[in-house]
């Protein structure tokens, strides 16, 4: 039985959207730096009753530090955060994993920036490749020594398959359980290509980092049913959009603006049946004072992602079933067509050599 898991990320013991969350994702800089953070991680696990916990390495924080011009170092005996400095090494991640005891942890990586120009992408990839190879190899070795019982995911920091092949050639042979891949600005066919590549390499578990897009969840759901033992994704959007007073449409996770100045047509009824929305109107939610509204929205938004995840998994055993589900829930015919064609190509060719058919996904007619 395969699995599709939504990891709720961006939460802490103060801001937790439900008392029963299937899976939570935390990160090393916030939770693995000292006894306070570790205690907080334990508290969070107990508050959320999470069945699964994933520990991210903190690569994202490294990227942010780089973008903000902060000093970055890699001294394993120094603390992680100090004033305007971030210090992360594979050993920090291992220590955090040993203390927090997550079910899965992600090797330390240095994420590549969101860049669109291919020549700049190439430089950025090459600049980070050394770190990513070294840290993947080191984290794998340390994990084998200190916490072999915890699953290890290797982050994939590449813009395209060619770059992935370069990375893969150099880490091949290390022990790990799955790949984690930032979705960034990749389109569904591009993510799909990576997923098929992982499938062809025999990878059984994949995590998509930072996404709650309806169509990415659909791709993940199909992949869970057809390519992998387990595919997961994490999202902080339940909280981020609640902070902006926005509501996830429970049908397709599109954003519904519920700020105080929005005009609400009395004919539009809120049809979400979650415990928060049941019997409530959009006017009710819109007019809640900020603290109440934030609580309401973050809880609803989390439940909406959870609901879509379950429904999508249930409806993606067959492609036609998935198409029908998507058409019922989304007005975006173009994206449904794109996803359906992508999955149809995968269904037809997933076991054929990728180079022979990848143009079907990369070239846009």
């Amino acid at each position, binding site marked *: 039985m395969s699995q599709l898991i939504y990891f709720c990320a961006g939460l802490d013991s103060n801001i937790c959207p439900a008392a029963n969350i299937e899976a939570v994702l935390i990160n090393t800089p916030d939770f693995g730096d000292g006894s306070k953070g570790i205690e907080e991680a334990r508290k969070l696990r107990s*508050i959320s009753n999470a069945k699964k916990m994933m520990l991210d390495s903190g690569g994202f924080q490294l990227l942010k530090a780089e973008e903000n011009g902060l000093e970055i170092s890699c001294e394993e005996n120094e603390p992680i955060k100090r004033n305007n400095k971030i210090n992360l090494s594979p050993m920090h991640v291992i220590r955090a994993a040993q203390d927090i005891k997550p079910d899965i942890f992600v090797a330390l990586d240095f994420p590549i920036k969101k860049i669109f120009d291919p020549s700049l992408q190439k430089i950025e990839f090459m600049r980070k490749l050394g770190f990513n190879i070294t840290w993947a190899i080191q984290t794998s070795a340390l994990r084998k020594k200190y916490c072999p019982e915890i699953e290890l995911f290797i982050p994939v920091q590449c813009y395209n398959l060619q770059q992935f092949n370069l990375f893969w050639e150099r880490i091949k042979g290390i022990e790990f359980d799955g790949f984690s891949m930032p979705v960034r600005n990749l389109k569904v066919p591009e993510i799909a290509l990576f997923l098929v590549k992982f499938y062809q390499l025999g990878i059984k578990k994949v995590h998509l980092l930072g996404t709650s897009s309806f169509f990415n969840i659909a791709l993940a759901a199909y992949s869970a049913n057809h390519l992998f033992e387990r595919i997961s994704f994490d999202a902080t959007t339940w909280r981020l959009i609640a902070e902006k007073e926005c509501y996830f449409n429970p049908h397709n996770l599109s954003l519904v603006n519920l700020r105080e100045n929005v005009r609400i047509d009395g004919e539009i009824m809120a049809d979400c049946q979650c415990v928060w929305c049941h019997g409530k109107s959009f006017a009710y939610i819109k007019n809640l004072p*900020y603290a109440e509204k934030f609580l309401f929205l973050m809880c609803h938004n989390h439940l909406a992602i959870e609901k879509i995840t379950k429904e999508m998994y249930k409806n993606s055993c067959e492609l*036609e079933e998935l198409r029908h589900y998507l058409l*019922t829930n989304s007005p975006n015919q173009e994206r449904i067509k794109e996803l359906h064609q992508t999955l149809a*190509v995968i269904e037809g060719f997933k076991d054929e050599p990728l180079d022979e058919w990848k143009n079907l996904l990369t070239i*846009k007619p």
Partner: protein
Amino acid sequence: MEEKILKEENQGYQGSLENFLEKEKSEFANFSEKIEELSIQEISKFTELPDYVEASADFFPIVIKSGESCFCIDGWEKVENAKNAQQTQIFCRVFYVHKISDVELAIRKIAIRMVPLAGRALYSEIVRNIKILINFIMQSKENIKVYSHGGDRKSDSFTNNREENIRLILMERFAKKRSTINQYISHGSYLTLEALEKLVEGKADKEFFEKVNNAKLQIIKELKSKNFSADEITQMVSKKIIEFFNNRENLEDLLKKRASNDDGKSEKSEPVKKEKFLEEPTLEYWKGNDASSIVKLCEEEIREKAAAICQRMGARFQDFSTNFSLIKEAVIGDVKELLSLINCMSKEESVCLN
């Protein structure tokens, strides 16, 4: 002279001042209030403070009278209008006092627009009464716009949304901001009328409602997570809030204790600074398609469409005016369409038809 006596003797015209005035027996206190016709000539305008931008909502000019002194502190425009209409008399709301001073008149001119005529209600009374009023309105089928006094910009904002219109009425009639009305409604939510009654009896103030709000939200969240119904949640929250109120002397400790028992579960009230938006967007919400309206292709249609695509593909290769890179792109599109078509039928159906 037509005269209507509203209340005689010791009428504290500004409620919250009443106790103070009674205690001190001030010479400046009202000893009578009347609607009385006065000669326009005898009324002087109090000029130490400028007039209000918006005209007085009272039907009558408001006048303070002591012996021969007679000052209009609000509604002078009505006196002017009467003068312009060649009238010599005008009905005024007259407050009789023993003594007048500029300071007292200035205080009254400010207070007249700040303190309700009948005195202030308790915060818990306002919360309770608004809850009852909203229940009334929601149960009635009446067009609530009739309760707007109209004539100001708020009445232009009515929409077809009853809940929104209720707020507009309350904003207009109570001269409060939307956020204040929302706060009243929110403070009354998940509380039974019995609980609110107890809070009124105990004179619960705004500070109490604000102090317990985080704990209240946390309780609601916990109960919702456990799938309790709205009625059950209301009962349980009410019980807890009354418990807090009964122990209000140790409220801080109780709330702290609760937060620590919850392992810090309490929600931070304002995690981010609220943004201000100038535009006025409208709500957009997709309600989903009716599943039965989605057209499903049958096997014959699929075969027919696929054959047409194949024919189109063949024609592409025979068109010598198109170069190979364009043919490649077009054929890739055709292949995707073909694969998509083939997958338009579930495996189960496909087996049956074969």
